[in-house]
């Protein structure tokens, strides 16, 4: 496992939906960032990475250094050595300027149980410098955006885990940041709750025009919503790249016909396409646009009822499988 090449640490801006703002500015850049606790425990080791605005997934096992990186980005922890820039600002020398433009959702429980969500988010909006009435308005807006309506006037203590996570997200959003740092936002949620949270994060990153850094130890989860992926392990950078770049070479077409699956498989194999079976699906590696034509032609010739033909990404997990087999 050698050091990653320098250019690997540079991930691109999403070109299909270019963001109106900030796209030319590097969102987060670190240079040889190192953090050791007490000179013995190494949380981050020589981390050099640079990402453009968008939705960034920061993946790594527990203890890989994700939370340490977030705290350094917020200016809460000084790095042992190296340099760091967030939105073009230095969190070490000017933490207040960074924090004014960043929203942070911590991993652990962070809500006083006796306050209502509306009160708490309003108060935290004021701590971010919003005037009183603006704070109240934006707090109810933020809570509405995360899907909390009438329940926002009830004490947080009685909320479900899913609702608490939404409140934590709303307080990170209340002051209209340019970047959200989300530490394990799906922690403790059931599958439906996870899907809802991920959809919400995706919406914030695309519709709201706010860049998001999502920390997770579950690669399968973040790859669904991110356009850039940064993987770290033991404080070292494994890989950082756009998802598109990681998956483009491995895209496959999934074909499903209501009947005659075997016939189609034989036919496609005869056309020199390496077909694989997966249940009722046939998987064909996507070489170029001609692959579509070949498949459609074969289906038409056999006169089979085509149920589905879509492009499917290989799971990014496969890209890391050899490097971090234990936690994907």
């Amino acid at each position: 496992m050698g050091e990653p090449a320098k250019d690997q640490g540079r991930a691109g801006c999403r070109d299909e939906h270019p963001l109106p703002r900030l796209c030319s500015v590097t969102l987060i850049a670190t240079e040889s960032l190192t953090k050791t606790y007490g000179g013995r425990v190494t949380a981050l080791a020589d981390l050099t990475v640079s990402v453009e605005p968008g939705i960034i997934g920061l993946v790594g096992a527990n203890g890989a250094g994700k939370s340490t990186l977030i705290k350094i980005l917020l200016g809460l922890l000084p790095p042992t050595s190296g340099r760091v820039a967030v939105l073009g600002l230095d969190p070490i020398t000017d933490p207040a300027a960074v924090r004014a433009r960043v929203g942070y959702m911590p991993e652990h429980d962070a809500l006083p149980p006796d306050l209502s969500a509306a009160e708490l988010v309003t108060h935290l909006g004021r701590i971010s410098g919003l005037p009183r009435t603006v704070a109240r308005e934006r707090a109810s807006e933020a809570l509405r955006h995360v899907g909390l309506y009438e329940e926002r006037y009830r004490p947080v203590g009685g909320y479900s885990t899913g609702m608490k996570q939404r409140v934590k997200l709303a307080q990170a959003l209340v002051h209209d940041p340019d970047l959200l740092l989300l530490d394990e936002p799906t922690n403790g949620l059931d599958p439906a709750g996870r899907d809802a949270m991920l959809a919400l994060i995706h919406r914030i990153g695309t519709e709201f025009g706010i860049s998001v850094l999502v920390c997770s130890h579950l690669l399968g989860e973040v790859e669904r919503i991110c356009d850039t992926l940064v993987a770290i392990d033991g404080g070292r950078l494994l890989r950082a790249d756009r998802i598109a770049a990681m998956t483009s070479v491995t895209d496959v077409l999934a074909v499903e016909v209501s009947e005659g699956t075997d016939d189609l498989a034989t036919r496609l194999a005869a056309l020199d396409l390496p077909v694989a079976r997966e249940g009722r699906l046939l998987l064909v590696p996507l070489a170029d646009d001609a692959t579509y034509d070949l498949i459609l032609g074969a289906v038409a010739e056999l006169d089979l009822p085509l149920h589905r033909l879509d492009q499917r990404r290989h799971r990014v997990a496969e890209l890391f499988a050899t490097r971090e087999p234990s936690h994907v």
Partner: protein
Amino acid sequence: MSEPTGVIHDIGYQRYTGPRLGRRNVFGALYLHGLRTVFGLGRTAKAKIFPWLVVGIVTLVAAGITAVRSQIGEVVMTYAQFADSMSWLVIFFVAVAAPELVSRDLRSGVLPLYFSRPLPRDDYPLAKLLALVTAIWLLLGGPQLVMFLGAAFTTDKGMRGVWDELLDLLPGLLYAGLWAAVFASIGLLVASLTGKRAFAAGGIVAVFLMTTPIVGTLSILPSRTINELAFLASPSTLVGGVGTWALGDLLVPEGRGGGVPIGGFGPVYGVAAVLLVAACVALLLLRYRKVAAR
């Protein structure tokens, strides 16, 4: 979390381009929030019971004193003596208010939400401290104002009497401020050490009560110097000592047997009080440097 159709219209996310206020406003917001927290405003009814019970008691006592004074025409208790005699209630008030201000936040884990905002690290404990100082000062000063109004309206010496009464009140309010500063800084420091409110309350009461026997022991030792310095050992008697030295006759008129027998050690008491408050504040700030980095 279903959206009632036709009621809420999603107008999409609105960016905010308006003003963002500076450090002073943010500090003010945190301070006011703390002051409201102490008196249970904007919180559940349960959180209001204790603070308002204490407020009720001190106000009743003040009203009683005022009533008796207007009947018998004699000063029952000076403003400073009133503050001294309320010391137990102040201790219990601090023991409830200080954990409410800081221990609760430590326990719920809300601090990362504060420290990830553009709030200077020292502003959080300082705003909480100022809120507690203000609350204690209001607790002691409010009833003194009741006593003053009572005396001012029943005086038979006209404006001259009101003026004399005001000159008595002002040192009393200053003395209440001294109480507030000493008790708030000790109480908040103790409370900031634990996230468990019961432990914090117990710790605060212990600090104030356990030191009283030390004063008792030292003041009966066969040495005049030790006796006169004995009152340094407990916060309540320390405050009394400083009051006697700095405000002296203004607090308790001569011949009424009041004050703390500190001999010629007045300045020592003054310095000790300043050092005590400074040390508590310094330790409090140190404590939050550690907490903020977590």
